[in-house]
Structure formats: structure tokens, C-alpha cells
């Protein structure tokens, strides 16, 4: 057990090293002079020189890498080429809106999707099942930003229930935060709900066919308990897995949703950085989100032992 946990944690290290190498090479292996790519067509030689020194581009590749990783390990993600502020400061200023929205979205999605999936499996091949499945296919088929604009059009412009765009910190005024966060959360949740509901349904369908479910029903256990205690707990592992791998989808969604709703989070920061070719910020964001993804999936892998006592490594 302890051995498994240790091995699983250690397995993260090579993955993160390869991600770091990849992020490092992304700029350096691009055809052409990286400094020229970053600076754009209008750059003066002085600007090019400044970018080269600030990214250490004139050193040999392996020395650049060692220096970069060394700074990384000290928590130094570099300095923005545009605003000249340390990247860590920029992320620190922008991360809270994203965290608030993302956490709310995950909670909301799980709260909606799991009952939906259970219902679809329980009422397999009835209208409820088809409704859930239709929603799920639809959720995968509409671009996130179109969903966002439909919500804005309906709830903010036609019905005038909610503000169109913007963000307010929950610590300042929770009501204002909620009014502005609901639509982004619903927008982001659509695809996540589709994904989780689909997996919950498939996993529950498999479990509901097991003998112990029939036994539980035969001995008169209440259906609610059969579904949620006997079946859902046994169906939990694939559901947890999809919540974890779906996290990558969520990050992509955050980037788009923050642009649609004008939220000053790290998703917008990333898009702005990419459009301005602010390379240190791009590097940092890819590293940060990949690290988060790996970390969340590690936690979920480890949590299986809680959900499923049969799993003993």
C-alpha cells in the first residue's frame, strides 16, 4: 500500500521532467530566430538583443536548460517581456478568479452530472435516459464560447436577469460575485457535465447488472440505497478517473470562458500572453497547468483506495 503510494508519487517526476523539456524546446526548436518570433516584425535590433539576453538565448542549449530549470526549482518563473513584472507575481494577481470559478464549476458539474448519469442508467432506455444522452452528445458538439454567448443573449440581454460580463471578488461582495460567476460556471459546466454524466451512466449500467444488486433488491433494500450505496460506490472509480482527465478540458474551457465573460483570470492572462508572444508567461502557464493536471490525477489515483476497498496495491 505505502509502496504503491510512493511509486505513484515518484512516477510523477519523469512526466514533469519531460513536460519541462518539451516546454523548453517549444520555443527553441521553432524554425527561425526565437527572439525575432517573439519580438514580431517591427522589432529593432536593440529589442532583439534585450530578448536574447533576458531569455539567455545566446548560450548553448544545454546550459540554457540547466539555468532555466535551476531558476524554476527556486520558484523563479522568469520575467514578463511585456510588463517586466515577475511571472509569479502576475499569476498570483490573476489566479483567484480562475480558482473560484473552476472550483464552483467542478462542484456544480458533479452535483448535476452524477445524479443525471444515475438516473439515465436506472431508467435505462426510457425517455429520461435518452434525454440525458441527448444532452450529453449536444454538450460535446457546441463550442464553449457559443454556449457562453447563448447564455449571455438569453439571460443577460433578453431577460436582463444577470450582468453581461465582468467579475467581482467574492470576498468584496458575494452577491455581486455570484451574479457574475453563474453564467461562466454554467458555460464551463456544460461540457464537463456531458462528460461525467456519460461516464456515470456507462459505469452504473455495468454495475446494475451485477448479482449483488439483484440480491440487495431481493432482500428489500430501499431502491435509493441500492442505487447510491451499493451501485454508485462500486461505479465510482471510472467516474473519478473521468473527472480527473476531464480537468484538461476544463482548463481549455477556462481560457475561452474568461475571454467571453471578460474575467481577469489566468486563462485571459495566457491568451493575452500568447497573442503578445510573451514567452516566459506562456512557458509558466503551460508548466503550471500541466503540473496541476498531473497533481489532480495523482490525488484521484490515490483516492481510489478510499472509494474501493478492494483496491489494495
Amino acid at each position: 500500500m505505502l509502496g504503491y503510494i510512493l511509486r505513484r508519487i515518484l512516477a510523477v517526476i519523469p512526466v514533469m521532467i519531460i513536460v519541462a523539456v518539451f516546454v523548453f524546446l517549444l520555443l527553441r526548436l521553432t524554425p527561425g530566430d526565437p527572439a525575432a518570433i517573439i519580438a514580431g516584425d517591427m522589432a529593432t535590433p536593440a529589442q532583439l538583443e534585450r530578448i536574447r539576453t533576458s531569455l539567455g538565448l545566446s548560450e548553448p542549449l544545454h546550459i540554457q536548460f540547466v539555468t532555466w530549470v535551476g531558476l524554476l526549482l527556486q520558484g523563479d518563473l522568469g520575467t514578463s517581456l511585456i510588463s517586466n513584472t515577475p511571472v509569479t507575481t502576475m499569476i498570483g494577481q490573476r489566479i483567484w478568479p480562475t480558482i473560484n470559478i473552476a472550483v464552483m464549476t467542478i462542484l456544480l458539474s458533479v452535483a448535476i452530472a452524477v445524479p443525471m448519469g444515475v438516473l439515465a442508467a436506472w431508467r435505462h432506455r426510457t425517455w429520461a435516459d435518452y434525454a440525458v444522452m441527448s444532452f450529453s452528445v449536444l454538450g460535446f458538439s457546441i463550442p464553449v464560447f457559443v454556449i457562453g454567448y447563448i447564455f449571455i443573449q438569453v439571460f443577460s440581454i433578453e431577460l436582463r436577469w444577470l450582468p453581461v460580463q465582468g467579475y467581482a471578488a467574492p470576498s468584496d461582495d458575494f452577491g455581486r460575485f455570484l451574479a457574475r460567476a453563474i453564467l461562466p460556471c454554467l458555460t464551463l459546466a456544460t461540457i464537463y457535465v456531458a462528460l461525467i454524466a456519460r461516464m456515470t451512466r456507462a459505469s452504473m449500467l455495468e454495475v446494475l447488472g451485477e448479482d449483488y444488486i439483484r440480491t440487495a433488491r431481493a432482500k428489500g433494500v430501499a431502491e435509493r440505497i441500492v442505487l447510491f450505496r451499493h451501485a454508485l460506490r462500486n461505479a465510482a472509480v471510472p467516474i473519478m478517473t473521468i473527472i480527473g482527465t476531464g480537468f484538461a478540458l476544463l482548463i481549455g474551457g477556462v481560457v475561452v470562458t474568461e475571454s467571453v465573460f471578460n474575467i481577469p483570470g489566468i486563462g485571459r492572462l495566457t491568451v493575452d500572453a500568447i497573442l503578445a508572444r510573451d514567452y516566459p508567461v506562456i512557458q509558466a502557464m503551460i508548466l503550471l497547468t500541466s503540473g496541476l493536471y498531473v497533481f489532480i490525477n495523482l490525488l484521484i489515483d490515490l483516492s481510489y483506495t478510499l472509494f474501493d476497498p478492494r483496491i489494495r496495491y
Partner: protein
Amino acid sequence: MQADPQPASRMQWLFGAIALPAGWRLGAGPIVAALVLVVIVASALLAPLIVPHDPMTMDAVQRLKGPSEMYPLGTDAYGRDVLSRVVTGGRISLLIGIGAAVVSVLIGLLIGLVSGFFRTADAIIMRIMDSLMAIPSILLAIALVALNGPSIWSVMAAITIPEIPRVVRLVRSVVLSAREEPYVEAAIALGSSMPKILWQHLMPNTLAPLTVQGTYICASAILTEAILSFLGAGVSTEIPTWGNIMAEGRVYFQLKPSLIFWPGLMLSLCILSINLLGDTARDVLDPRLKKREA
């Protein structure tokens, strides 16, 4: 607990081929999806012949007009015909979707075959694939486009690369189980060459799941193209794609939401159809599922 089968079978007819094995009847869902797709692909292919206006011609007098006989879906901010642009836009969007699906399946197939068969290569390849999967695909794609320029090819590559690890994992898992089959052992014992074993004996096992995966990749690639364009990291804005048309409509959204909704509808219909066909293909091709549903 099981519901009355009568209404269920009617719903089945509507929603698809869930009960396909008995008699191979296709539901209306996949048929409608296939028809929609044929119409969209045909109109995209024939776009230059059938669109009422040139999709690039600007007309300052006709800016942001509502639907009329001359412009059935109205005009955009430059006075260009929205209908013509949406139909023409499908060309590049579909090209990118199909291209990304074909290329990522081919590359993923080759890497997956090697990874599933050679244990030493497997450890290294799978670590690299795990790392690639850890990078959020949208971020990776926008970074790649930002660095390589907004050409159709760089957008296609940017969409293809993040999809490859998923194909590799699928192919590898199929190869890992097929490798233990007697016919593969026999081929090894007979001294067949390695490429021959990989290609003639193992590769055919992957065709069915790859067909399904390919349709899903195609759908998600079309979506990603739209998102890239929307974020300003897509194909150059001179070329109409569904994503570009929506990205341009963004500025005038409050004034004229239809600039986003028409291309959005077209794109969603297209992806919905591809996904439905993918689901049907999976139900037909995956014998495990057939047994469970039967």
C-alpha cells in the same frame, strides 16, 4: 425496474442504433446524421459554384444588414454575405477536421504498434505520451500556432499533435492484448519479419477502434479550430472558416448575434452528426458493447 419496452423501442428508433445486432436496423438518428453530413460536405465542396455571392467581396453600403431576399442570412460588418461565408467556411474547417483525424490516427498507429510490441521502447514512449497528455491541448495548440504562424498547416499540426497520445494509448492497448493471441505466437515461431507481424497480424485489430476514435478526433478538431480562431490564434483571418466568422462576429455580438449563431449552428450540426455517427460505429464495431446491451 425495466420500463415498458414499447415507448422505449420507439425512442430507440429515434435516437439510434442501440439495438443494432438483431437484424441490423439503423435508427433514424444515424441516418439523419449521415444526411446532414452529406449536405454539409457537399455544399462545402461545391461552395464556389453554389453560393449566391462572393464570400470575400466587401460592400460598405450593405454593412450588418438583416436577412433579405438578396442576403438570406444578412451581411456582416464588411457587407459580406453571411450565407456565402458560412457555406464557404466549411471548406477549411472540414479540411482541418479530416486532416487532423487522418494524420493523428496514422502517426498514433505507427507509434502505438511499436510501443505495444517492444517492451523497451514502450516505457520511454509511454512516458512521453503521458507528458504530452498532461499539457492542456488548447494551450499547446495556441502556443504552437503563435510560434509557427497562422497558416492552415500550422493550425492543423497544432490540433493534431495533442491528439496523438490518445491514439497511441488506444493502439497500444489493442496490441498488448492481441500480442498474446496464438496466431501472433505462431507468426513469431514461423520467423515472420517484425514489420510483417506488426502490419499484417496486429494492425488489423486496431482498425475498428481507430475508425471510432478517428470520427471523434475529427469532431473535436473542428471544435478546436473554432476555439483557436475565436482566441485569435487560428487560421489567418482573410480565410473564412467557421471559427473565423464567429471570431469576427464577436465584436458585433450585442448588435447582431446572428453573426455568431449561424456559423455556430452549422458547426454544431456538423459535429453533432459526426459524433452520432461515431457512437453508431462504436455500437456496431464494439462486440463487448453489443453483448451488454443485448
